[in-house]
């Protein structure tokens, strides 16, 4: 169990030590912000970032919903949200909203409903997909263009049900290996601020190869169906993005105070006796994701703890998590413990983000980090009383330290629309059919 409740607030040096896995390394930190970085950063303002923290199999509303409403001391954290006590003033809890999409396929309809605002596309009883982009990709389409990675997808122990989609059948597979995530973010191509820059001539050659591939895609897709042309368009998008990414490597890295090259993780956190070491892996993957944001490698990420329906056998449980949500007798102490543990991982992420100094504030102040799941009450696959926690004020656009309880089961899509607007999107609406909304949730807007 993560000892988040008793973790002292870490200094930036402490933070780096954490990332470095306790290795005794001395780091010369560039204490003064140089103004040679990205324009937005150089102007002393910081771009708004978005994160999605997602777990599968829901919670228990009776142990989830905080008592009291409003801000400050007017409300108290619930049992399952206890790990968030050290950061209570940095988060908002929205309770009482509901997904208004058909609950066609338990679990998966909820994932689609909360993340796309649309009904799940049910092709057959065993094949379903999203009808549109998930919220992380809707936001990345607007704010992801300036960084090396348009978005990052990280998952701990997912099954095939992953959560980030650009559109139907068009998923963004997450990185699940700490070593691979490290290599992708901080491998040989990465240059930390101040590191020697010698532009490799091979970078330009790689771009010319990609340009040729783009031409191939254009010719290849002629005469194909609309659906197949869309698939090839996605290929083309990826190729063009990679060209831009290489171009960025040819330029100097942004000068960011909190950014430094971490050391590679030394474990893949494989299962031990059939059980995944989830908290341990989560902390390492969180550290890498947070440093990726601190280095402005990406401004959007999704972080998936587990998958809907997935039956992970977690520490201290006598059945898989999904089985427990359905079969564990009341009052379901194991389910409560697991959800609390997951929220402890969320709290760890919030805390880490709050420790990255940016200007007068922290990275957390410049982002919105949504935590949600595929369902609320697991035992009956409920889509009412949907779990929503938001951390960070998105550059002052969101209230924090608030519990808002919807008095009449408002559409959860309203929260999603508010988050997009808080991230700078000029979004007029979100979702489709029952999930369609044009209004955000004013109660959490600053």
């Amino acid at each position: 169990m993560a000892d988040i409740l008793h973790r002292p607030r870490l200094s930036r040096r402490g933070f780096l030590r954490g990332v470095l896995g306790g290795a005794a390394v001395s780091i010369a930190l560039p204490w003064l912000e140089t103004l040679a970085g990205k324009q937005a950063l150089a102007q002393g303002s910081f771009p708004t970032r978005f994160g999605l923290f997602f777990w599968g199999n829901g919670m228990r509303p009776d142990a989830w919903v905080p008592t009291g409403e409003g801000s400050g001391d007017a409300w108290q954290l619930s049992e399952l949200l206890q790990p968030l006590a050290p950061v209570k003033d940095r988060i908002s809890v929205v309770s009482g909203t509901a997904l208004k999409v058909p609950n066609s396929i338990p679990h998966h309809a909820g994932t689609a409903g909360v993340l796309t605002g649309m009904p799940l596309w049910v092709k057959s009883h065993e094949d379903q997909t999203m009808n549109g982009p998930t919220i992380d990709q809707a936001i990345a389409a607007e704010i992801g263009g300036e960084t090396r990675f348009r978005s990052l997808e990280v998952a701990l122990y997912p099954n095939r049900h992953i959560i980030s989609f650009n559109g139907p059948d068009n998923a963004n597979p997450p990185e699940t290996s700490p070593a691979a995530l490290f290599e992708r973010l901080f491998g040989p191509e990465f240059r930390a601020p101040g590191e020697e820059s010698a532009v490799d001539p091979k970078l330009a050659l790689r771009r010319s190869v990609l340009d040729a591939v783009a031409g191939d895609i254009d010719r290849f897709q002629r005469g194909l169906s609309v659906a197949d042309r869309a698939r090839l368009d996605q290929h083309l998008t990826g190729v063009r993005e990679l060209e831009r990414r290489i171009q960025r490597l040819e330029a100097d890295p942004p000068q960011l105070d909190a950014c430094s090259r971490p050391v590679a993780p030394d474990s893949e956190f494989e299962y031990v006796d059939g059980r995944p070491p989830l908290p341990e892996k989560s902390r390492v993957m969180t550290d890498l994701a947070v440093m990726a944001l601190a280095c402005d490698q990406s401004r959007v990420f999704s972080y998936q703890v587990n998958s809907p329906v997935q039956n992970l056998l977690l520490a201290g449980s006598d059945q898989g998590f999904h089985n427990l949500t359905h079969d564990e007798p009341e009052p379901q102490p194991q389910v409560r413990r697991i959800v609390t543990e997951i929220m402890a991982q969320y709290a760890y992420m919030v805390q880490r983000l709050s420790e990255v100094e940016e200007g007068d504030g922290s990275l957390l102040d410049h982002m919105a980090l949504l935590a949600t799941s595929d369902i609320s009450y697991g035992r009956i696959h409920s889509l009412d009383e949907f779990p929503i926690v938001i951390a960070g004020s998105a550059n002052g656009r969101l209230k924090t330290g608030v519990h808002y309880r919807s008095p009449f089961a408002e559409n959860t899509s309203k929260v999603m629309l508010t988050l997009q607007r808080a991230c700078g999107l000029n979004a007029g609406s979100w979702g489709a059919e029952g999930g369609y909304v044009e209004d955000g949730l004013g109660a959490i807007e600053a």
Partner: protein
Amino acid sequence: MFRLLLAATALGAVLVGCAADEITAEPPVEPPADPATAEFEPRPPPIPRLTGAQYARSISAVFGDDIVVPPSPEPDVREGGLLAVGAGVSTLSPRGVENFERAAYAIAGQVLDTERRARHLPCDAAEVDRSCVEAFVAIHGRRLWRRPLTPDEVVAIADLANAAGETLGDAVGGLEFGLAALLQSPNFLFRREVGEPDPEDTSRRRFTDYEMASRLSFLLWNVTPDDALLDAAEAGELTTDAGLRAHAERMYADPRAREGVLRIFVEWLGLDDLDALNKDTAVFTAMSPEVGPAARAETIAVIEDLVFTRDADFRGFITARETFVDRKLAALYGVRAPARDGFARVELPPESGRRGFLGQVSFLALNSHPTSTSATLRGKFVREKLLCQIVPPPPSGVDTSIPEPSGTTRTLRERVAEHLTNPACKGCHVLTDNIGLAFETFDGLGVARTTDNGAPIDPTGDLDGLRFADADGLADLIAADPGFGFCVARHVFRYGTGTLDESDQETLVQTLADRFAADGHRFGGLLFDFILSPAFREAGAIEEGA
């Protein structure tokens, strides 16, 4: 004929809402029609993306086994449980494009390193001139793109390679960029098989010779075509009945067919999941990381023996008392261990109750929970994967919990009694649990047992009204069910066309199934019937749309 079809449709029936109480079989009608001349309306063909295995195997086939191919640049997608179908809808994410780029340079670097370059260059490494570059692109491009490159395509890639060679001052180093362009092209990563007007009947479209080379090679070998097959395509042999049969026979007799054809079964039965079998070792003391892969190897060995070695009645997959075990599985099954490392044939004793695929760890462990069995998952697998029926998911808003074992309800049968009597659950759970409870004599890993929480297990039940005493008896009923043969034929169709059959295509699937049954359920016969049928050779017209 029409009446027969109606009956057939009822057999492969969709159990909508689980309301069907009983399914009655019609007597078979003979002689079965030839699938090659069956009525068939082709659909627009899918454009599959190479699966991870096809990508890696193609690199090995073209450049040699000693090339290290980076693992799965992009995850495969399943549809209807099959990667072969999911390949037709899957896209490439930005991360996938990035991984394929990295893989391309890793491969190109190895192909052209100082040790290997002589093997792959059409000229001396010291004399890489323009004609050598063009020849290199043309030779390897033909294998990778599964067709000859046009002169323009050769020139474009040779230009890239030459320019890179000049920048780097290293002509062979420049070729790496040309090869990387071949490897990242959609012409390699996607299979563009769209057909052409059939010269004998221009109202229909057939797959071209090169497209047939690709289709045959991926179906039978799961890899890019070899030079012999591309030569046959160039000679126009693969659009003729005789040429197609001859090449299919040549390939089926080749050892590579074992890997390719067995993939059909791996995907149909979901055997890939055995590589990540997740069980509580405190509950299942026989569990270890070797069990899943060993179980997968057992199932594959049984099928290989049935299909390739003996060309026997495929229903033996369900009913055989023979299987193949290594030491791990022998201990788990309680049979004598092989004298040597590896797998050996054993006869399971009749009193073991263990018989055919449904007695294997593959089935029993995959369709269980991490700490317990599941009658529902096991029954659902039999209905859906072996009999091709549909069991809908549970309705939402329903408490699906199973009570904990107690003094009065000890066995799983007693604990799920509510599911089998409550009208809201009964419709579907009768379908799944009545079958699944037969396997309660095997625990969640597949070890035989006689009691559950100390109480004796009752494995009796019925399959759509036909009584059975235990899993052994159930195996006979499943093997005798016409739905089983139909289901095998349907999976061959789905795998081989890369599409899920629509209702109007069921005619052809049923024709294949009828011949399969009349032919003694020989799998090779079914596969050849499929290859020579219009389903494998004809393409529907593509509507380009707006």
